[in-house]
C-alpha cells in the first residue's frame, strides 16, 4: 500500500465513523471543507493526494491529530518525546496556545514524512 493509499484509507475510516459512528457523506465532507464534490472520493481511493494543508483541515474537522493519517511506525516512534519536550518549553502559555503549538509541531512532523517520500513508494504494512 502506498502512503497516499494509506492516507486515503484513514480519511475513509474517519469519515465513516464520524459523529459517534453515524458517519458523514462524502458530499457533506466536501461541502464542509469547501472542496469539489468528487475530491473526497478521489482522496479515499488514493487517486488524488491531499496536500498537507488538506490533511490539517481534515484533522481539525474530525477532531483528530494530523499524525493519525500516517502509518504508526512512520510518525509515532519519537513523536511524543519530541513534542512533549517542545511543550515543556512552552508551559507558561495559555491552554489554547499550547494546543495550537502542539498541532503545529505535529504538522511539521507530518509535513516531513509526507514530503520526504515520493507518493508512489509503498508504506510498511
Amino acid at each position, binding site marked *: 500500500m502506498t502512503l497516499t493509499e494509506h492516507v486515503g484509507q484513514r480519511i475513509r475510516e474517519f469519515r465513516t465513523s464520524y459523529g459517534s459512528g453515524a458517519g458523514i457523506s462524502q458530499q457533506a465532507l466536501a461541502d464542509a471543507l469547501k472542496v469539489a464534490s468528487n475530491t473526497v472520493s478521489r482522496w479515499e481511493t488514493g487517486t488524488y493526494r491531499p496536500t498537507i494543508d488538506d490533511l490539517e483541515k481534515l484533522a481539525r474537522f474530525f477532531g483528530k491529530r494530523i499524525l493519525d493519517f500516517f502509518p504508526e511506525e512512520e510518525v509515532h516512534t519519537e513523536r511524543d518525546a*519530541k513534542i512533549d*519536550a*517542545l511543550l515543556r*518549553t*512552552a508551559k*507558561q*502559555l*495559555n491552554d*489554547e*496556545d499550547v494546543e*495550537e*503549538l502542539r498541532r*503545529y509541531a505535529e504538522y*511539521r*512532523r507530518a*509535513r*516531513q514524512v509526507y514530503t520526504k517520500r515520493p507518493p508512489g513508494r509503498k508504506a510498511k504494512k
Partner: protein
Amino acid sequence: MRDTGYYYEMRELALEVRVRNGIEGANLSMRDMWRIYCEEGIEKLDFRHGFKDLRGAYFNDDCGVTVMLAGGLPDEPTIFTMAHELKHHLVDSETGPVVCRTNEQTRRIEIGAEVFASELIYPEKDFVYDLFRLLRGIPQAVSPEVLVELKRKTNTTLSYAALAKRTVLLRLADEKAFRDVRWKSLQGNSNNRSNSHSHR
C-alpha cells in the same frame, strides 16, 4: 554587567547581518526579512492562526530550520518577530526549540532577541542621529509627538513601542512620557498637519 556585554554583542551582530545582506536605512520590509532568512539558512516560514499570546517560535531539528509566526498580525510586529526569531537562529539554535510570547521579555535570550531585532530594523546610532537632526540638537526630553514625526520622516518599520522603549533606555525621556499613548491617533494628527502644510 555580563548581560550588558551580551546585549552589546547582539547589537553588533545585528549590524553585521545588515552589512552582510546590504540593508540600509530604517525601513526593513517583510521582503527584506525573507531574503535575509534565505541567506542566513532559515528554510521555512509558516504563518499560523489561532494564537493568543504566542508570537513566534524557532525550530531547528530533523524537520528542518523553521520559523513559525502568529498569523494575522500587521506588518510591523510581523517584521519585528521575524527579526527576533532570526536572533534565535543565529545565536540560540543549539538550545532546541524557542517559543516566544508577546509578553515574555524577561529572560536573557528573549531580551537579547528584542535588542537584536530593534538594531536590525533601525540601528541605534542612526536613530540618535535622525532624532538629533530632527530636533536640531540635544533635546530636553523626547515627546511622543517627536517620535511620531521621526517615524514619519524616516518611514521606519520599527514600532512606536520599540522606539519609545529605546528612547527611555537612552534616557532621552522618562518612561511615564509614553504611558498610555495613543500612537495611531497622534500619527493621524501629524499626517493632517503635514497635509495641510503641503497644500498651502
